[in-house]
């Protein structure tokens, strides 16, 4: 049992990842606002639809459209339409509103930021929620702007995954799709280490068995990663395969590794096969890194972390996500390692039988 502690760890980690990754609810998020365009001097009735919200009691709801870090247009009246949608009335003032479009560092600001706070549901906001058409007062008098101070709402204490528009619940795929690639990378690294050791000790065929087993699992994870990615892309980017750089380069990387198996099967002599495929593996790994991590960053891509897209950092930094994501990476990688050891053992028995014969 002592020898198998890491297998127990794998099961526990994956069990935890499945449970936590599927059961922790998403936070409240605004997914629809209408109307989007607001006119100065208008008393607007803004309809706000929120995901996962239960707004039963309107007394404690606070809502405002924040136009800069310190000022906001506060709601004059809040009514519920249904438990997850609100009708919020705003009086849009005349005159030039101090809307902050870019912040001091030149980055795009989130304003006008629609913010809703309710003690049970917590705080939720939508960046650039509305467009405010500004106009001078019709009678020409420059009345003071009717703005309220934007004091920070209490921080959200609920354990939630962040709600992001378009992604919605699919943010959970971070624990299943992304670890496939992390696992593939780590397992292929083990494969290339075995290949290098094979070259150092040409008489030990065992390294070759290990290298090919790890490569098999790496490719399995890669194929699963690319198929799950395609399904995810269909429902967020709009197509299974949109010829995105990241998709293309990962497909090429997988093809390079498939060629590794073709190369292996073309040799009858075990030693020759071990040596040549070890060299090929080193080169395959060397092309894998630029294909997956360098080229996609140099071109425009829909994939997070590429071509100016915000990386997962914006929600990866979310502490709740991290709590599940890191165990997921370790768990799936260990599972891959486990599968690879099974394959290694079977191959070793086969080689032994072969030498007896």
């Amino acid at each position: 049992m002592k020898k198998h502690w890491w297998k127990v760890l794998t099961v526990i980690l994956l069990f935890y990842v499945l449970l936590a990754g599927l059961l922790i609810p998403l936070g409240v998020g605004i997914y629809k606002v209408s109307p989007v365009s607001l006119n100065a001097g208008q008393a607007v009735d803004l309809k706000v639809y929120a995901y996962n919200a239960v707004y039963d009691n309107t007394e404690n709801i606070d809502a405002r459209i924040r136009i800069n870090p310190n000022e906001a247009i506060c709601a004059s009246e809040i009514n519920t339409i249904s438990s997850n949608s609100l009708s919020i009335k705003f009086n849009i003032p005349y005159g030039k509103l101090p809307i902050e479009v870019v912040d001091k560092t030149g980055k795009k600001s989130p304003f006008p930021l629609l913010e809703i706070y309710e003690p049970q549901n917590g705080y939720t906001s939508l960046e650039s929620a509305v467009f405010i058409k500004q106009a001078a007062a019709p009678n020409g008098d420059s009345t003071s702007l009717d703005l309220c101070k934007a004091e920070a709402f209490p921080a959200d204490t609920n354990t939630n995954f962040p709600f992001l528009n378009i992604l919605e619940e699919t943010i959970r795929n971070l624990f299943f799709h992304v670890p496939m690639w992390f696992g593939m990378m780590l397992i292929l690294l083990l494969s290339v280490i075995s290949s290098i050791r094979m070259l150092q000790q040409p008489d030990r065929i065992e390294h070759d068995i290990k290298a090919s087993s790890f490569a098999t699992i790496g490719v399995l994870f890669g194929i699963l990663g690319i198929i799950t990615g395609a399904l995810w892309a269909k429902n967020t980017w709009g197509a299974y395969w949109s010829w995105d750089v990241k998709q293309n380069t990962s497909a090429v990387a997988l093809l390079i590794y498939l060629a590794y198996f073709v190369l292996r099967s073309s040799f009858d002599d075990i030693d020759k096969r071990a040596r040549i495929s070890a060299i090929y593996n080193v080169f395959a790994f060397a092309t894998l890194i630029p294909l997956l991590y360098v080229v996609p960053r140099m071109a425009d891509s829909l994939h997070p972390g590429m071509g100016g897209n915000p990386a997962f950092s914006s929600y990866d930094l979310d502490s709740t996500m991290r709590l599940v994501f890191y165990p997921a990476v370790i768990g799936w990688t260990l599972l891959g390692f486990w599968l690879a050891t099974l394959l290694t053992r079977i191959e070793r028995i086969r080689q032994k039988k072969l030498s007896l014969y």
Partner: protein
Amino acid sequence: MKKHNIILAILGGILLPQLLMAQDAVKTDYMNNMGKIYVVVGVLTIIFVGIIFFLIYLERKVARLENQDFEDL
């Protein structure tokens, strides 16, 4: 015969969900419903199927060893 079975299984695996979905497509767009949670279900199913396929691959390898079929080694 064995090959035919595999091809049938793959075709069935692809076509059956399509047929089921085609019937439901009129009623609801499954994937975009309920915050797209079915995308996560789909991703988990793909991973599960992938691991099952790997198990079948291992099983065949072990079976070949058991049968002592030296020509296949």
